[in-house]
């Protein structure tokens, strides 16, 4: 048997030197005259171990990491092709605690298979969901997705099945499935990982969505900051077309479905669904007023399903194992699993897929291992630039849509960014306003003007000018933005601002007092 070596080509692994490791391994193989197959897989998401190289042995896979190019010679010397001992030896990847503790449903194959091998995809349960879906009526597929309790993983948490039902019930000569892959929230990378590590699961999910709603055309709108994901998706669509997964007859059925990958142009607001639709149409990415809902009048005025990458990529497992199986995970009205992205100043950073219900403290302290700087955790921002900053006092909050809303926060796209005690929360609040000002589409006044006034007012606070008056002004401004903005950009910017003010009041005290307190 020719040995197989898995070296991730995931952006995160590449950023940590995976390409140099791959080159070193290839040249070492050539030098030693060993024949082996190098597979460029995605990442399993344990980024503190990347680049993580795996070898397929008679006793299953053995992982080594984090591998540096300088380790490669000694890896060969220790017989790593048969799982030999080495200082980078990690053992079976599924037994690595960070990975063993997870419930991998959506990410079951990510980092395991060759992302562009449809054969490998099928061997690991791929296309089973689509095959099951093809045996059902569209209404029955929609009913399964509704029954599973799947809610929009982009952040809004709207029930996916209800969205699909609206599109199914709307008459249209042409309908679209649009995948929102404009993953702009800092602290999130789940969409990128799945597109780079298991692109077929997204294609399968979108195809099921098409069959369920009567849509024949899909678009994936990927942000331009993700060139590797764009390249991978384009290649995967090509493979899927050749294999008859996409095209005039999906897997030989009477259904037609095809899709295109489109690239954004660096506008954060295009992650908002209606701005994304305008952008796809070739316009400025301006937010649309709702109604009409995209499900009624979406892309080019046609009925459109617009879902996040993870929502769509979770559909195949639901159709494969059944709604009841998926629904069994989770808590309250948050069913199934959620890929939590642990980021920022964190020792064990990466993607952790788990059923809803873990507390924030478990995620940050037990799984993440605290800060990488070794200093105490001061604040954790959950849900991207529009998410609230949580203090340690709220670490008992369970990861659940409603529980986070009850604490004036949101889980958003499930990214969490950890800050140590050197963080200045006034600076973070100011950044939230500044970011909103940079990225506002400009259509509504509270967002366009409010964010700029917010920056100015927080600057006055920092300078110690009429602190009480200006603090009241920021609070009032946040209230206006929250209730008066057209979309979540202006509407949610108050979350990071107000949570900073509420939970870290000392950081907003006038400068002399702040200095004295330190």
């Amino acid at each position: 048997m020719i040995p197989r070596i898995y070296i991730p080509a995931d952006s995160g692994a590449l950023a940590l030197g995976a390409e140099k490791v791959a080159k070193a391994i290839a040249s070492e193989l050539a030098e030693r005259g060993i024949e082996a197959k190098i597979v460029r897989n995605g990442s399993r998401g344990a980024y503190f171990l990347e680049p993580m190289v795996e070898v397929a042995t008679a006793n299953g896979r053995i992982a080594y990491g984090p591998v540096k190019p300088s380790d490669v010679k000694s890896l060969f010397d220790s017989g790593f092709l048969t799982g030999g001992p080495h200082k980078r030896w990690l053992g079976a990847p599924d037994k690595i605690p960070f990975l063993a503790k997870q419930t991998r449903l959506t990410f079951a194959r990510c980092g395991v298979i060759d992302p562009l091998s449809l054969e490998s995809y099928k061997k690991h349960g791929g296309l089973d969901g689509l095959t099951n879906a093809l045996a059902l009526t569209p209404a029955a597929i929609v009913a399964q997705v509704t029954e599973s309790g799947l809610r929009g993983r982009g952040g809004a948490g709207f029930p996916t099945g209800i969205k699909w039902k609206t599109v199914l019930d709307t008459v249209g000569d042409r309908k679209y499935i649009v995948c929102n892959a404009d993953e702009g929230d800092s602290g999130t990378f789940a969409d990128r990982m799945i597109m780079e590590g298991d692109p077929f699961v997204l294609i399968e999910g979108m195809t099921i969505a098409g069959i369920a709603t009567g849509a024949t055309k899909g678009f994936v709108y990927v942000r331009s900051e993700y060139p590797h994901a764009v390249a991978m998706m384009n290649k995967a669509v090509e493979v899927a077309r050749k294999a008859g997964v996409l095209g005039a007859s999906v897997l030989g059925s009477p259904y037609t479905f095809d899709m295109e990958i489109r690239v954004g142009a660096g506008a954060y607001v295009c992650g908002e669904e209606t701005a994304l639709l305008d952008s796809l149409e070739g316009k400025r990415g301006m937010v649309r007023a709702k109604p009409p809902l995209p499900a009624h009048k979406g892309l080019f005025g046609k009925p459109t399903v617009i879902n996040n990458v993870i929502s769509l990529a979770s559909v195949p497992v639901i159709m494969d194992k059944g709604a009841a199986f998926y629904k069994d995970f989770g808590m309250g009205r948050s069913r199934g699993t959620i890929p939590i992205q642990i980021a920022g100043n964190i020792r064990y950073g990466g993607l952790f897929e788990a059923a809803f219900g873990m507390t924030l403290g478990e995620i940050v302290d037990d799984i993440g291992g605290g800060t990488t700087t070794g200093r105490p955790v001061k604040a954790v921002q959950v849900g991207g630039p529009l998410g609230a900053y949580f203090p340690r006092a709220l670490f008992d909050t369970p990861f659940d849509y409603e529980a986070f809303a009850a604490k004036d926060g949101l889980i958003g796209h499930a990214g969490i960014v950890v800050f140590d005690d050197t963080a200045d929360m006034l600076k973070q609040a100011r950044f939230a306003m500044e970011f909103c000002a940079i990225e506002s589409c400009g259509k509504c006044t509270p967002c366009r003007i409010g964010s700029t006034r917010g920056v100015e007012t927080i600057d006055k606070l920092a300078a110690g000018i009429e602190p009480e008056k200006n603090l009241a002004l920021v609070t009032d401004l946040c209230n206006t933005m929250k209730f008066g903005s057209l979309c979540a950009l202006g509407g949610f910017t108050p979350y990071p601002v107000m949570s900073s003010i509420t939970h870290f009041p000392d950081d907003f005290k006038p400068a002399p007092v702040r200095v004295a307190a330190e």
Partner: protein
Amino acid sequence: MPMQPASTEITSRTTAIIQELKGLEGPLLPILHGIQEEFGHVPQDALPVIAEALNISRAEVHGVVTFYHDYRSHPAGRHVLKVCQAESCQSMGSDAIAAKLKQLLGIGFHETTRDGSVTLEPVYCLGLCACSPAAMLDGEVIGRLDDEKLDEIVAEVRS
């Protein structure tokens, strides 16, 4: 600095790109991406050609080009260095990273060095948040930036 192509040349190359992509649904962004890839920026002279071909006003094309951060009105340096300034990287000292790069290169954000070697830009998230602070040099991703890596980057763009 790269030579600016003459306007007739811009017209003919732009027309070729439009012909290739015009059949797409919502072709404007793909066309603009194609033009930027061809010229390194979106030349003013290309705008009326696009407007004419897509039967929209020149103002509409201008509106779209200026809305998106990615489209450049002038060519960038030979290298483009994007440094993440979003929250995750902030938590790992991206402010200091940016300050050091500005000092080493002698330019600010959105500026190009006088010798045309590099353009420095902020970016808001590269999706490398578990290996912050991060940057992207000519499309290649770099994580866990430290002084050593910054020196390597600066040496590379200067070479």
